[in-house]
């Protein structure tokens, strides 16, 4: 093994190595920007914001139409040239009903039409207008126009690496392309292997069997020389369904918030570095509101609110199920147990239910089961994409699939913010966050989580907030 070859140990095997599924984090970690590239890219290391990748520049032509100027002299790994037809084809493929591409969901109600101006200029028109279209371009990987409308097993892309070997169950090998359009990365070959056990992943880097373990647990992350902590864009919260007694009452929701001793979790069940959340998106997101303060831990106040509510005839003794998913995040069961204990201490009749993923889904997403008791869904949501639009509709709009509330003002704010641009967009999101947090008390926001990576000392690499979604080999250097 040449010393510019590296081994990456991932936590789960890839089912597919399909470019249009690159937004799925385990797939993205291997192919995103390594094999397949996107038109634009979000800068997570510096503060450049949205940068061009396969697009050199873009411009809003008004009326929902954006013009993208494409990079010249780019070749796919199969030798064909990259041009506007490939872009068009890539999008058509994503929207096709012959194939289930994940990135499609980001364009849920948006109709895109393409107009190829010249081989390296393309106009994309969104119906209704989509103010963050260039940002959405970070989500769609570009494939050659010959790519069929079905999942491929040997992805062809414009990225610096090609898939050299995929032995199901064992390994995936990427090799560096010498005809890459950009600067040649330092890593010549990357082998991906898969180990479910975090202790084993950590051990592999320790013994030199691997160079990077992007996800290990806080328990394993004990060596400051090799172990990094990074915010992973995941936010943990308790979803409240306001339509079920006693959750409709704001005092109850406030009491829920005040009953939880958030500080007690950090450095104990959750890693040092975990932050309190005041919104469902991490602080790096547009419109994040720095003025919001996390609810204080105040059991006495919680009891007082409950007493008040009870006096008004709210049945605060109604059973409340705290439903968490096994292996959702490290120590989820203990977190659930602790939450239940805290809720019980202020007088809630709470109990914990740990369920597996499919069952969790039933409770988390609409349609919710009939005749359910009050439930608090422990859920983890990630948004590293820079804009709240990817979260807010689903979680808070009255039509959102995981929404537990129905508030016209919330709906209105979401709709307006989604359609706005620039400063106004940020302001609207801010307003929404404040309204949800302080006025509605829509849910129990808990933590912005951190992830841990172990990186061999011979590498020069620091994980970022994007490490959950992608692992750009070109960002890895050698010491």
């Amino acid at each position, binding site marked *: 093994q040449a010393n510019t070859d590296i081994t990456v140990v991932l936590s789960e095997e890839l089912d597919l190595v399909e470019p249009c599924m690159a937004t799925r984090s385990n797939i993205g970690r291997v192919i995103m920007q390594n094999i397949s590239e996107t038109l634009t890219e979000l800068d997570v290391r510096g503060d450049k914001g949205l940068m061009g990748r396969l697009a050199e520049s873009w411009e809003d032509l008004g009326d929902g139409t954006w013009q993208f100027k494409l990079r010249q002299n780019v070749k796919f790994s199969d030798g064909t040239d990259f041009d506007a037809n490939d872009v068009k084809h890539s999008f058509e493929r994503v929207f096709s009903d012959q194939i*289930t591409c994940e990135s499609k969901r980001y364009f849920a109600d948006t109709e895109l039409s393409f107009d190829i101006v010249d081989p390296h200029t393309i106009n994309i028109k969104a119906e209704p207008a989509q103010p963050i279209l260039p940002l959405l371009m970070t989500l769609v990987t570009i494939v050659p126009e010959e790519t069929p409308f079905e999942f491929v097993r040997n992805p062809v892309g414009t990225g610096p690496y090609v898939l050299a070997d995929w032995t199901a169950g064992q390994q995936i090998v990427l090799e560096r392309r010498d005809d890459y359009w950009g600067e040649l990365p330092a890593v010549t070959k990357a082998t991906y292997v898969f180990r479910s056990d975090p202790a084993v992943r950590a051990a592999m880097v320790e013994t030199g069997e691997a160079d990077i373990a992007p996800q290990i647990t806080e328990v394993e992350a004990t060596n400051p020389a090799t172990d990094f902590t990074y915010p992973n864009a995941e936010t943990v919260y308790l979803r409240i369904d306001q339509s079920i007694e006693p959750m409709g009452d704001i005092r109850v929701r406030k009491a829920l918030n005040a009953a939880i001793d958030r500080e007690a979790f950090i450095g104990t069940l959750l890693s040092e570095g975990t932050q309190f959340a005041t919104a469902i998106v991490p602080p790096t997101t547009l419109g994040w509101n720095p003025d919001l303060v996390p609810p204080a831990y105040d059991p006495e106040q919680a009891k007082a609110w409950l007493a008040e509510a009870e006096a008004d005839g709210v049945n605060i003794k109604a059973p409340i199920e705290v439903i968490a998913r096994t292996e959702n995040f490290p120590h989820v069961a203990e977190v659930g147990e602790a939450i239940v204990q805290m809720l019980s201490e202020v007088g809630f009749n709470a109990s914990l239910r740990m369920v597996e993923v499919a069952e969790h889904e039933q409770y988390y997403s609409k349609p919710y089961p009939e005749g359910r008791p009050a439930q608090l869904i422990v859920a983890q949501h990630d948004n590293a994409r820079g804009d709240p639009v990817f979260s807010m509709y689903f979680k808070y709009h009255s039509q959102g699939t995981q929404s537990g509330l129905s508030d016209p003002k919330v709906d209105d704010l979401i709709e307006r913010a989604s359609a706005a641009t620039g400063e106004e967009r940020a302001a609207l999101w801010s307003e929404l966050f404040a309204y949800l947090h302080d006025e509605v008390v829509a849910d129990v926001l808990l933590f912005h989580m951190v992830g841990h990576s172990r990186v061999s000392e011979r590498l020069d690499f620091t994980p970022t907030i994007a490490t959950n979604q992608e692992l750009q080999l070109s960002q890895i250097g050698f010491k």
Partner: protein
Amino acid sequence: MIKLIGQRAIASIFSLLVLMVLVFFLSRLTGDPAVLFLPIDATEQMKEEFRRLHGLDRPVLEQFWFYLQDLAYLDFGESLRKARPALEVVLEAYAWTLPLALITMALVMVAAIVLGSLAAFKTGGFFDRLVSIISLIGASAPDFWIAIVAIVIFSIGLGWLPTSGVGTPVHWILPVAVLFIRPFGLVVQVVRGSMLAALQAPYVKTARAKGVKNLPLIFVHTLRNGMLPVITVMGDQAAALLNGAVIVETIFGFPGIGKLMIDSILQRDFNVVLAAIMVTALAIFIMNVLIDIAYGLLDPRIRY
């Protein structure tokens, strides 16, 4: 013998059918694969499309009918998640599981029979106690615990063995060793108990009167009489291994059927589950026929 195999083949086809019907319908009771395949905030329309693409929108009976038709051509359908033929995925995993199971069981058989028999021969003695206690601890210790401790000692501490993976024969040592422990503990006890009874029999006296040495006395004269429960229990353990050794596969990154099966069940990848169960069942059926034949070979008095 040929007749027995023939009869069993026919009976097994029925069993396979029963199994298939059971799995087909029961698995479909456990939820919708679309919500698990697609991200949590996928639209209902995407879910619809996914179901349509994979025929999951049709009535279950119709799905079953189509499945049967495909099966007639040995087509087990596609994996929902991997977009590959389910059978191919399963066979790939099986190519790892089968040798793992065989090697492990072969070692278990030899070690358990030798130690269990010797323990029974010296009932109540030091060796007997030692073997019993070690094997019982082995049979009841959590295997992930043993696996991790083994990695810590042999890979990290001593650096003798790789932590995980399947590249070379050395990679197999830890998985086999960890898998070995539980069946070994179990079978030792069964051998010991069975031999204890067999050693009481009068023909053991005959052998001693003949001047047969202790080792052939134990392993030739007595063992064969005590083998019936032993091979039965070994069969059960082998079946468990053929069903996949989840923990070991998970920890050692061993691409066997166990992890595949678990993942497929949890992800409701029905076609893979079905294909995996059918292949496993076939292996287990063959094993059971072999065991039944072995009964007859071991004990000529047995008639079916």
